[in-house]
């Protein structure tokens, strides 16, 4: 009796030891490259912390500076908001339409899915270069408009309001295939019996999609919306490469602001503070979405 308990104890101890061995690379890495930086980031955000040179504690000055005397911060916040509000609904709606369109009756839909997925996986820089070329004043869009319809289009990347629309358009095109695959996977899992029952009840076409398919895949739509919104708030490469944040600061989102403060102006403290504000915004918005999900997300159990 005592022997077995004792044995069990040593067995458990050895298992615990071995578990620690298995987990230690991850634990060390996580401590070194996530937990330490997160702690450091908090510290940096309350310091005047230049890339090189002396650091001085300055309390909430960085945060105050951002909100009161940093000329680009509010515009960056606004740009991130505008981008997110345009990008998320467009991207979700279009990828949903596409996923439903690529239903089981479409021949070659496997190949089509791959095609829609290509811009997701090739380097963003390459995608942006292609769009930049097309959006030049002498480029494809304006060229076609002029020679087909005799209309001169605005200079997309130099016009403050058009520049943001083009950043959004390019991003929607680039990211469409990703959510499409999430939705396709969800649609694929719909039980045949439910769809059949619905069609026997007379639901077809739009009605079937709106009242049966969409509610049933609403957990996936919820998931995709949250992830898409988070990535939208973190947008960087598209505006940085397409417009350089311009004209002026019309397309400079928060992450680009952070990057500029930190690595162009060498003010790491201010950049860290701005990053925390971005994080807070992400948390709040995600929280709101979770609170709102009861209203529209439908779970089986």
């Amino acid at each position, binding site marked *: 009796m005592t022997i077995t308990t004792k044995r069990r104890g040593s067995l458990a101890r050895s298992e*615990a030891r071995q*578990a*620690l061995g*298995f987990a230690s690379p*991850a634990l060390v*890495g996580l401590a*070194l*490259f*996530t937990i*330490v*930086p*997160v702690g450091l*980031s908090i510290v940096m955000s309350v310091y005047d*912390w230049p890339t090189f040179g002396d650091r001085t504690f300055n309390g909430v000055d960085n945060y105050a500076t951002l909100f009161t005397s940093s000329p680009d911060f509010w515009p960056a916040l606004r740009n991130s908001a505008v981008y997110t509000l345009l990008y998320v609904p467009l991207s979700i709606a279009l990828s949903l339409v596409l996923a439903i*369109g690529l239903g*089981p*009756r*479409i021949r070659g839909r496997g190949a089509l*899915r*791959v095609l*829609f*997925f290509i811009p*997701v*996986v090739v*380097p963003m*820089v*390459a995608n942006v*270069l*292609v769009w930049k*070329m097309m959006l030049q004043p002498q*480029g*494809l869009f304006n*060229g*076609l408009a*002029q*020679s087909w319809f005799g209309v001169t289009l605005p200079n997309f990347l130099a016009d403050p309001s058009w520049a943001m629309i083009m950043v959004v358009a390019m991003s929607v095109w680039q*990211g469409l295939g*990703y959510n499409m695959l*999430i939705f396709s*996977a969800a649609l694929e899992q719909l039980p045949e019996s439910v769809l059949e029952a619905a069609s026997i009840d007379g639901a077809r076409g739009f009605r079937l999609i709106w009242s049966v398919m969409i509610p049933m895949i609403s*957990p996936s739509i*919820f*998931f*995709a919306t949250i*992830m898409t919104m988070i990535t939208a708030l*973190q947008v*960087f*490469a598209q505006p940085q490469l397409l417009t350089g944040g311009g004209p002026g600061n019309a397309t400079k989102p928060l*992450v680009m602001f*952070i*990057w500029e403060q*930190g*690595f162009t102006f060498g003010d790491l403290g201010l950049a860290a503070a701005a*990053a925390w504000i*971005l994080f807070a915004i*992400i948390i709040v918005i995600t*929280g709101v979405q*979770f609170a709102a999900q009861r209203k529209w997300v439908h*779970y089986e*159990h």
Partner: protein
Amino acid sequence: MSTDTGIDDAVEQTLLMTSEDEFVPEETGRRAKAPRTRGETIRLIIAHVCVYLAALVFIAPLIYAFFSALKPNEEMFSMPPTLVGSQLKWGNFAEVFEYGPFWTYIGNSLFVAVAGTVVVLIVSTTAGYAFGRLRWKGRDAVFVLFLATLMVPAEVLVIPMFQVMQWFGWVNTYQALILPFAFTAFGTFLMRQFFRGIPFELDEAARVDGSGPVRTFLQIILPLSKSAVAVLAVFTFLSFWNSYLWPLIVTVDYAQLGTLPVGLASFSGLTGTRWDLQMAAAIISMIPTTILVIVLQKHLVKGIAMAGLGGR
């Protein structure tokens, strides 16, 4: 409380999708073989036309970019626009490599992506095993800590991470490109979820046969998890291959240490008005991942279904 169940359900729901192995277009396509009325046939044809038109519009920029890469530079913005130039200058693709250190960029990207993937796979499978199948005190608390770190966006981390790299003296080194973002909790989470789905009787049987955790892990759990490991590998590779912000920050000497995205961006700055070369370079950089996607499409679909992870 209610929020917790919410995310669990969402994750559960998405994870459940993997239980079925893959899309089976042929099988579900059987429905199409049922006798059809004329109206249905017409609707089906219209659906095909719409979908294929959408696909054409969608892919048009890439087709246009490809043919632009073959034009002489003077004809890039000819009026009216043409798809194909007066001649096909395949030499543009070769000229890219003379204009910039493109092989270096490709080599760097390849090295960083492969090394990063290896690190991620080792770390994620071992930690996933410890969290998913071994019993130890404090396991669940530590795991929650792991998951909590998933919420910290990379943008918050890059600023202090750059400082840490300076302290280590790692700025402008390969290890700075590889290690900092190789320890995210995501892979661990994914592998843990997968490992927990494997029947625990297997471990017990192995233990009765006298094998310890290491052998159980290497000879039973890992071989049963090939598909999950493959999915994680593909997505990790893609995210390293396409990553832009961090390499932009942590490398200084792009000609020597630039990865493909950073190299491509600086290349477009160098070539200025040579749009033909920029397009050729863009097309070249698209080739490897496009091939990867075509070859591994089933794994990609599975990976997306698994948890919506990806190379973003």
